């Protein structure tokens, strides 16, 4: 919070006004809403669409919305979606191809109208997830054009965490409930006390300042700032889970033949839920679609999962046929080989994979078990050495 001086305080009407200002700029404003018993990211028109008075109770394999007496709007934890739903959509047309009667081919790159998004309520873990996907999809030699355009045009309003859930472990992944540094346009911190229900606003960009200038707001006061900081600081110590405090990269690299993979494979349904809800999982496959004439073809991209047995298909069969190898691929990629490929961990500690696993497999518990197994192995080797 030190890098960005507080610049204002909004109330609920101010939040509505902010949504209107962004919509007037031609943006599609997306925020948390309540639908089907879950927090669902959807287009919003005013603050009334936001989940005021809703919290969530989560555990491994469990998610419930619960009413909150205090009327808080950002006191819920992550729902099943993340912002990748919009920046890296589930289905996207890549190109169309036509074949003329003489067999000549012409290929046209699809150029859809790109939506200009404003995201309201991006949690610090999800903000990190967006920067990770930036490196994967837009940072290499061949930037994904669609992603880059959607991302460049997106306006991000972060919401600091004051109410972490039982499956949250961002702090142990080097993140935290606070929004630090850059990467956002505005950052909100919800404050609920005798002074009323309000949001401390910090500005993170020129576009953020412009938007805030168009919205009625009070100057930031010391009391609101203090309360906001205290709430976020307290959240840091209330994470429901933690990764084992070891170098996960080395742990995974040295655990490729661990017995624990058999243990987790006996529980894992290889359904791929964890990859769908993960805010950084980016894998896709392509589909070839033709019309009835056979002279018009389209290439579509859609999300894929390393848990699908066809994912590693080569002629002769899949490389990773067993559940053991597919779970290992997911976990080692997320926590270890991601560094080699994209310069960071692929996990931000949002806890979605724990919450939305139908059998409650817990990534932190699996990492801890792998750590215990490796520690036991190392002890055993040392004993053998001293006996010699």
């Amino acid at each position, binding site marked *: 919070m030190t890098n960005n001086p507080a610049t204002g305080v909004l109330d609920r009407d101010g939040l509505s006004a902010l949504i209107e200002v962004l919509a007037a700029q031609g943006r599609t404003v997306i925020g948390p809403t309540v639908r089907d018993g879950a927090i669902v990211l959807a287009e919003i028109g005013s603050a009334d669409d936001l989940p005021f008075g809703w919290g969530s109770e989560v555990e491994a394999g469990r998610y419930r919305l619960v009413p909150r007496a205090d009327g808080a709007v950002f006191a819920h934890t992550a729902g099943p979606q993340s912002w990748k739903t919009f920046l890296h959509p589930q289905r996207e047309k890549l190109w169309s*191809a036509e074949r003329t009667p003489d067999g000549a081919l012409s290929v046209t790159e699809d150029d859809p109208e790109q939506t200009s998004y404003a995201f309201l309520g991006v949690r610090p873990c999800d903000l990190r997830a967006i920067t990770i996907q930036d490196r994967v999809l837009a940072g290499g030699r061949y930037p994904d054009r669609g992603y880059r355009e959607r991302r460049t045009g997106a306006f991000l309003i972060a919401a600091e965490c004051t109410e972490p859930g039982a499956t949250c472990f961002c702090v142990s992944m080097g993140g935290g409930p606070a929004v630090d540094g850059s990467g956002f346009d505005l950052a909100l911190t919800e404050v609920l006390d005798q002074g009323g229900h309000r949001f401390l606003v910090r500005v993170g960009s020129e576009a953020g300042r412009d938007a805030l200038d168009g919205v009625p707001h009070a100057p930031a006061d010391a009391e609101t700032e203090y309360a906001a900081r205290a709430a976020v600081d307290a959240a840091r110590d209330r994470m429901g889970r933690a990764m084992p405090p070891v170098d996960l990269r080395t742990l995974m690299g040295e655990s490729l033949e661990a017995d624990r993979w058999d243990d987790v494979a006996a529980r894992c349904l290889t359904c791929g839920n964890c990859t769908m809800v993960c805010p950084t999982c980016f894998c896709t496959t392509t589909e070839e679609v033709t019309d009835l004439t056979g002279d018009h073809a389209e290439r579509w991209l859609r999300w894929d999962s390393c848990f699908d047995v066809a994912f590693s298909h080569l002629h002769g069969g899949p490389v990773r046929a*067993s559940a053991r*190898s597919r779970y290992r691929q997911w976990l080692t990629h997320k926590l270890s080989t991601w560094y080699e490929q994209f310069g960071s961990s692929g996990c931000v500690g949002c806890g979605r994979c724990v919450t939305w696993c139908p059998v409650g497999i817990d990534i932190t518990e699996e990492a801890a078990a792998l750590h215990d197994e490796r520690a036991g192995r190392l002890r055993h080797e040392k004993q053998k050495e001293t006996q010699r």
Partner: protein
Amino acid sequence: MSDVPVPHLVTGMRRETADTVSLTLTPAGQEALEPFAPGQFAMVYAFGVGEIPVSVSRVGRRELVHTIRSVGAVSAALCALRPGSQVGLRGPFGTGWELERAAGQDIVAVTGGIGLAPLRPLVLAARAAHRAYGRLNLLVGSRTFEDLLYADQVRAWAESHGPLLCRATVDRPSPGWWGHVGLVTTLLNSARFVPENTTAYVCGPEVMIRATARDLLHRGVRADRIRVSLERNMRCATGHCGHCQLGGVLMCRDGPVIGWDRAASLLMVREL
């Protein structure tokens, strides 16, 4: 061009074996791809069916040759094409063999089955500039005589006394077979190279790559100078689809040609 396939005309089709053809592809319009280095690959698009990665098997001035074995829907569609048809091409992608790094050294190229195709442009380039290198060896393995790619060319090389020492072997001999019988690794005994000053290039099934690299190491070739070409599922070739991972290696970006110093530990883990 990395995003969208560039139309190419099939200007030549040659049946190599019962299930393998070589397609000569020439840009159909003004647009052409950047030049390919030996070992690099293109995504080859069969209209209405899909795309597969295929290494180049010859690089001409304007045209490219891809040698394709029919093993799935896309490769079957490509193998059924005739001159006059069109395909789409994206590329070039991936790392090449990097022949230039072998200047002054002996060269040992070892191939198994269709693995001869990605190594052919390297052999042609090394042979054409043989004074820049030490001794050149090409060791070709095939299941049978009938499965041997470029059989006439391989035989001509094997019988010539030029700068290239070529030996070929099959697992099961059939009438008319003129070469050796046995695993391709046995040919290393007749190759001429000084291990400490050798770069090796290996392409074929993974089990053959493992055995060949083991024997080369045993003879004293440095692990980082054993360059192998690996195969994984690829959907995008641009590092975004995640399919081609082998541990930390994104095969389309960091491969397909990588050093044995990096590949060894990865290929020793089952189902990685």
